[in-house]
């Protein structure tokens, strides 16, 4: 339960970090709340750890009317408490509140959680649901990568070795929309057996226009499911959210593991979808009024 030996650098600029990361077997260390367990269990044994915690300027949350950009060193707890960020995209606070426990949220970073690409992560799911993108820096420069091109498989992304994800951008919640996030876990703060995040958008005459959902611990990579057809055009007070839940159950492809069977997870997808959609719709109706 001790990490295998490695070399350690804590550069003070992004340029220096990228230079060290060009070494073979180098890995970025940000919050370390997923990486350190992997090192201690020797599931990962990088030759060099490049600790980015001493690089200035990566800990900013930038809020505009279009969305929220979160720097690579922003801890979950800071995002959870950022009122400006949750005003523009309420899913950020709703999801971060479900990330592990306070001691983990104080250290773990939202961008690191996305770059870790764990399909049981709350922030990967919300990143997809909000149609997010990341900024990826390499020695060749910096580029923006959308979530669909980012996730390749469990714990696997498309970014090249030696790159640093410097920020993640979560677009703003559209007008006349509401959100909700809920999960089922054995113990508060544990990995969710199943979680659901939803966005409901209404038309000007308060009918359901668009329904999107994304799940936690369901499938190999984050996915966004369009559930609109089950409830399209219904007045918001009369929408059949159970029908949307039933549709969601047909769209997901969960796995069986030690914590839950695939069937049970599919059942939870239906229940959580129905529940969260009712909450999100009520919020959307309030905002549309």
């Amino acid at each position, binding site marked *: 339960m001790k*990490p295998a030996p490695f*070399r350690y650098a804590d550069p003070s600029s992004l340029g220096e970090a990228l230079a060290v990361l060009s070494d073979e077997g180098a890995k970025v260390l940000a919050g370390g709340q997923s990486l*350190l367990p992997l090192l*201690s269990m020797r599931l990962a044994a990088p030759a060099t750890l490049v*600790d980015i915690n001493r690089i200035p300027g990566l800990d900013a949350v930038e809020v505009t009317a279009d969305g929220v950009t979160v720097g690579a060193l922003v801890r979950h707890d800071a995002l959870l408490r950022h009122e400006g960020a949750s005003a523009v995209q309420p899913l950020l606070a709703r999801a971060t509140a479900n990330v592990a426990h306070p001691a983990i949220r104080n250290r773990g970073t939202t961008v690191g959680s996305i770059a870790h690409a764990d399909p049981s992560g709350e922030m990967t799911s919300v990143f997809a649901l909000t149609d997010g993108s990341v900024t990826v820096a390499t020695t060749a420069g910096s580029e923006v990568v959308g979530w669909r091109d980012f996730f390749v498989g469990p714990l696997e992304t498309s970014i090249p070795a030696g790159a640093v994800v410097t920020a993640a951008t979560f677009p703003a919640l559209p007008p006349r929309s509401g959100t909700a996030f809920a999960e089922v876990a054995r113990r508060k703060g544990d990995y969710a057996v199943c979680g659901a995040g939803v966005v409901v958008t209404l038309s000007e005459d308060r009918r359901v226009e668009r329904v999107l959902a994304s799940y936690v611990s369901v499938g190999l990579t984050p996915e966004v499911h369009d559930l609109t057809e089950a409830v399209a055009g219904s007045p918001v007070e009369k929408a059949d959210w159970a029908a949307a839940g039933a549709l969601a159950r047909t769209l997901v492809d969960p796995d069986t593991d030690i914590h839950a069977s695939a069937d049970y997870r599919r059942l939870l997808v239906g229940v959580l979808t129905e529940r969260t959609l009712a909450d999100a719709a009520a919020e959307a109706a309030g905002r549309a009024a």
Partner: protein
Amino acid sequence: MTSIDTERTITVTVNGVPREATVPVRRLLSDALRHDLGLTGTHVGCEHGVCGACTVVVDGAPVRSCLMLAVQVDGAEVRTVEGLAREDHQGGQVLHPVQEAFRECHALQCGFCTPGFLMTIAAGLEARDNAEELTEDEVEDMVGGNLCRCTGYANIKKAVHHAAAAMKDADA
């Protein structure tokens, strides 16, 4: 030029005292506190961030010391369970209100998990305005990340309320 090392000398303020240690870079903070600095009050349970027994306060925030490298606290302030009690005027020690509450409410049995609970709760209560009522949700969020296999959590939660009330009275 960035220095790439396998061993480093770090300076860290632990419970108000500046300390220096030369550690291999792979040394976990939990192990550095126990082995290099001799502060064995920080307990090591699962070593992968699940049990919370090793929780310490780094720069004001409770963190798992098994999920940080010792080299990462170079220049930081760390508070461990040894730093909770304070000295009284006669050279004795006065327990922290959270420690007092644990004794009062029978919130520990074997005591293995206790340092982690104490640090999480002390930091949690010190960071909030105790004049505001402490909700059950807040208490559960505070202690939910720490495992206790003896007493169960009812008395631990009771101790959090007890400590919050004592800290509120002390503020008043």
